[in-house]
């Protein structure tokens, strides 16, 4: 049985060059970057080089990058760190109903600790309106967190517009760019972004490493205490091999970015076209104009997502519903709920396919064919 990985939005395979880079570092460079001897300096050099490459990738300055253990930590740090450091200016936070749980659950934690959070709705395409952000803004708003592009349906948010709006307001602007980074051009200065989270493992880098961009001047309270690493924002000896791998992954993802983007568009078109040829009933969840091409969230009326995913897996296709699990069983997606309401069928019959490095046009055709076979079996 052929196996097809179609869950790149969950995580992606590590690029062989990244593996090589990390292996090299693990073999030879083991100094502590904080040490004042030759071994330490060697390790420190790797981190500085990586910081440089990563800062440039979003048009940030060198000293505006904080390495974290991944996207979740970056989100937590951005939200909790700014909330606690700026509570003298207000306790109001604005976010959206479709954020990743790393943001949503952190907001719930902040609510339990005296902060007030406004969760903005989205339209049927999964997009938040700038007007809603504007209307929700108050004098005591200290932070607005809107994801760059959604991880379940791929809808791209009006980040530059929100940034523009907030440039006149005290509130900091955070965006979780975990899913968009590497595929969309990001300029934190032009977009007026103050805080931005990225994770390495979504871009063919290693797991366990990510970064938070923090605009110079942002007041951020650290919540790891210890040494003076990351300008005291995040104590703890750095994950040097991870950082080295992250840098390599960023270099690779930036190369021919537009070409890759265009290829993912082709994969998407081919996949949808193939599904149409199978004459099964389906509908794309998300936006027709503002979307990440590699994420395709499809609703198949008459199917049931739990049986569907298991069937796909047993046929060799690894896809996802995009939503969270408790004890392994699926909870209806909060993103689809925000788009369609809590009673809609899409919550129970939608599958997320996501593509990336190494996926071919033939692969997506096969995936579409097998998917259609499963749909026919389940709707018989």
């Amino acid at each position: 049985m052929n196996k097809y990985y179609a869950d790149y939005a969950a995580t992606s395979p590590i690029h062989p060059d990244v593996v090589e880079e990390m292996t090299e570092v693990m073999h030879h460079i083991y100094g502590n970057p904080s040490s004042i001897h030759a071994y330490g300096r060697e390790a420190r050099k790797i981190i500085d080089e990586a910081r440089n490459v990563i800062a440039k990738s979003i048009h940030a300055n060198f000293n505006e990058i904080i390495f974290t253990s991944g996207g979740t930590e970056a989100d937590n740090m951005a939200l909790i760190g700014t909330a606690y450091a700026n509570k003298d200016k207000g306790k109001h936070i604005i976010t959206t109903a479709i954020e990743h749980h790393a943001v949503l659950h952190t907001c719930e934690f902040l609510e339990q600790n005296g902060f007030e959070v406004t969760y903005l709705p989205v339209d049927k395409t999964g997009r938040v309106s700038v007007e809603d952000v504007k209307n929700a803004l108050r004098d005591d708003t200290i932070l607005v967190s809107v994801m760059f592009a959604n991880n379940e349906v791929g809808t791209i948010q009006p980040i530059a517009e929100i940034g523009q709006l907030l440039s006149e307001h005290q509130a900091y602007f955070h965006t979780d760019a975990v899913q968009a980074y590497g595929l969309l051009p990001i300029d934190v200065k032009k977009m007026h972004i103050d805080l931005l989270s990225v994770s390495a493992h979504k871009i063919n880098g290693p797991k366990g490493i990510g970064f938070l961009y923090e605009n110079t001047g942002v007041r951020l309270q650290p919540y790891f205490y210890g040494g003076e690493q990351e300008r005291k924002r995040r104590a703890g000896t750095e994950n040097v091999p991870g950082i080295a791998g992250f840098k390599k992954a960023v270099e690779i993802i930036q190369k021919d970015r537009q070409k890759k983007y265009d290829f993912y568009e082709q994969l998407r078109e081919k996949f949808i076209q193939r599904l149409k040829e199978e004459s099964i009933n389906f509908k794309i969840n998300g936006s027709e104009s503002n979307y990440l091409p590699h994420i395709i969230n499809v609703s198949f009326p008459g199917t049931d997502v739990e049986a569907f995913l298991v069937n796909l897996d047993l046929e060799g296709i690894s896809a996802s519903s995009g939503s969270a699990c408790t004890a392994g069983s699926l909870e209806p997606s909060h993103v689809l709920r925000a788009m369609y309401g809590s009673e809609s069928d899409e919550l129970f019959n939608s599958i997320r396919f996501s593509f990336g490095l190494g996926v071919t046009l033939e692969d997506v055709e096969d995936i579409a064919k097998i998917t259609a076979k499963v749909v026919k079996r389940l709707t018989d």
Partner: protein
Amino acid sequence: MKDPKNTRVVVGMSGGVDSSVAAYLLKEQGYDVIGIFMKNWDDTDEFGVCTATEDYEDVIRVANQIGIPYYAVNFEKEYWDKVFTYFLDEYKAGRTPNPDVMCNKEIKFKAFLDHALKLGADYLATGHYARVIVEDGETKMLRGVDSNKDQTYFLNQLSQDQISKVMFPLGHLTKPEVREIAKKAGLATANKKDSTGICFIGERNFKEFLSQYLPAQPGRMETLTGEYKGEHQGLMYYTIGQRHGLGIGGDGDPWFVVGKDLERNVLLVGQGFHNEALYSDAIIATKVSWVSNKEKPKEFRCTAKFRYRQPDNNVTVRLLDNDEVEVIFDEPIRAVTPGQAVVFYNGEECLGGGTIDKIFKNEKQLTYVG
């Protein structure tokens, strides 16, 4: 039957030792085994961690040890609608429900079986102590070989259609043997404690749990002749034949629950384990279901259990209309309780069963029982 390797078996895995061994044995026999965990109840602790997570973690460990794919499926809505609603309704009616029987009938061997079939399964397997054989052109359900663990009592509502798609890999084993197999195979759940009580209540206090859903109405305790014996905390907390929790002191034999007067909200009590009021000699059972599709004689002799682990009783069964039967006992039986299951056996074979509805002694209905 197909070759095992072309036979797909979905095993319902709870994270306990029984279903772990069931999956292990099937895998050893060469079947195409898939482990699935059912999440039927939503319960989170103070940090929002779902209590089912620990059990699912055990399913994952065992499935990986055995080398089978594992998944989970959510039947919270079905469980609530079909089992928990029934459970509360029965308590409201002053009866003692058996949610395990209902769960097997409506969830494990219906919703879950349907799910398994959707995954291309030929069979659904569970870790129940019962056996299935094909004989005389139909599928029969036999008691588990371990008479101490036999679970056919809880499976009595399964139909021919259901039972013909089921495997019980532990039916020929005793519990100590199952533990031994788990230990030898090094399964992560080999030493895991057996779960006790009703699944959705778990180890919690039953009274506290029930009071979250049904208002407790305290009232009087009386003897059958109307003598006041104190206060009860709510009729739903008591079952027929119960001794504990009455708090009636004094001399003589201990006190037992002998009945309930729902209308007056009075708990009826009597003295002595063998109190005469606790004995009955016939019942009418409703919602009777037979494993076999073959027509039954209008009247026949067999044995019956009126509660789990009770020794068999000789009875005569008379078929009435509408899935009802009259069951006449050879000897009077103590504490037969409305709402519980009556299950019929012919030797090793479990014939089916129903819900105990009306209770009689000397051809008179014992209305005080409920």
